[in-house]
């Protein structure tokens, strides 16, 4: 017996209404590619890592964010208003080094063509920088003040800037919200040699259209 929501067996195969495409049980629905799931796992791991880095930086480095620049701008506002416990210098250090990391990420992505290799190198850089910050934290007596505090803030913010710039370039949906704005790392990336200016605006529009098409394809192939 045919199910009430399905087409009968003798019906035309191409007459299925578009609303039926959202059901997972339909045989015509596209199955999630293993590669997409692998990318999602990698992005989840990176998001988890951002949470660890932000927890350590906020609790241990004196109320400053190094991965979440939206929060860091808010903290900078608190510090500028004179709220106790917040530091303008530390927040500005994090913001500026994040910008420097975005510039470096922009340089990196203009020198490399392979998306996979670019992301792998960005994550390797991140691992190296976070490991260096861990070594500084182990060696210093306290990371809450002094040179160790600003060194760890600078290293972590730089690493997060590189990562956010590269992932923003890859156009993977849902992974561009760590900056103050989704386009926040673009000014930093434009500072890199060959950055967007003048004749590059048209190429930017083409890239945005390509990113939108990729995003639609991505959403269409995920399981409901």
């Amino acid at each position: 017996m045919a199910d009430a929501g399905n087409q009968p067996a003798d019906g035309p195969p191409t007459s299925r209404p578009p609303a039926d495409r959202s059901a997972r049980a339909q045989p015509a629905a596209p199955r999630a590619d293993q590669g997409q799931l692998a990318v999602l796992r990698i992005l989840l791991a990176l998001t988890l890592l951002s949470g660890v880095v932000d927890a350590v930086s906020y609790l241990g480095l004196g109320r400053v964010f190094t991965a979440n620049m939206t929060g860091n701008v808010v903290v900078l506002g608190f510090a500028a208003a004179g709220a106790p416990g917040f530091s303008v210098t530390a927040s500005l250090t994090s913001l500026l080094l994040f910008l420097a990391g975005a510039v470096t990420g922009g340089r990196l992505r203009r020198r490399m063509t392979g998306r996979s290799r670019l992301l792998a190198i960005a994550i390797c850089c991140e691992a190296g920088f976070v490991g260096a910050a861990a070594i500084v934290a182990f060696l210093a007596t306290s990371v809450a003040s002094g040179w160790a505090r600003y060194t760890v803030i600078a290293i972590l913010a730089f690493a997060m800037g590189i990562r956010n710039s590269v992932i923003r370039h890859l156009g993977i949906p849902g992974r561009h919200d760590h900056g103050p704005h989704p386009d926040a790392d673009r000014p930093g990336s434009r500072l890199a040699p060959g950055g967007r200016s003048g004749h590059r605006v048209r190429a930017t529009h083409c890239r945005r259209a390509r990113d939108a098409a990729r995003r639609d394809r991505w959403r269409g192939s995920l399981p409901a």
Partner: protein
Amino acid sequence: MLLGAIGGAALYLHKGAGLPLAIAAGLAAITAMTLHFGRASGFLAKS
């Protein structure tokens, strides 16, 4: 991110700043190796 913040905060409160950062570095290295040797590499290359 919430889980990472909880884990990072708990580790920081008990062990200091070095251990959670070292774990984060190890996680990033494992992620990079997973990306390089896994299926995500091929997907990113063709997408």
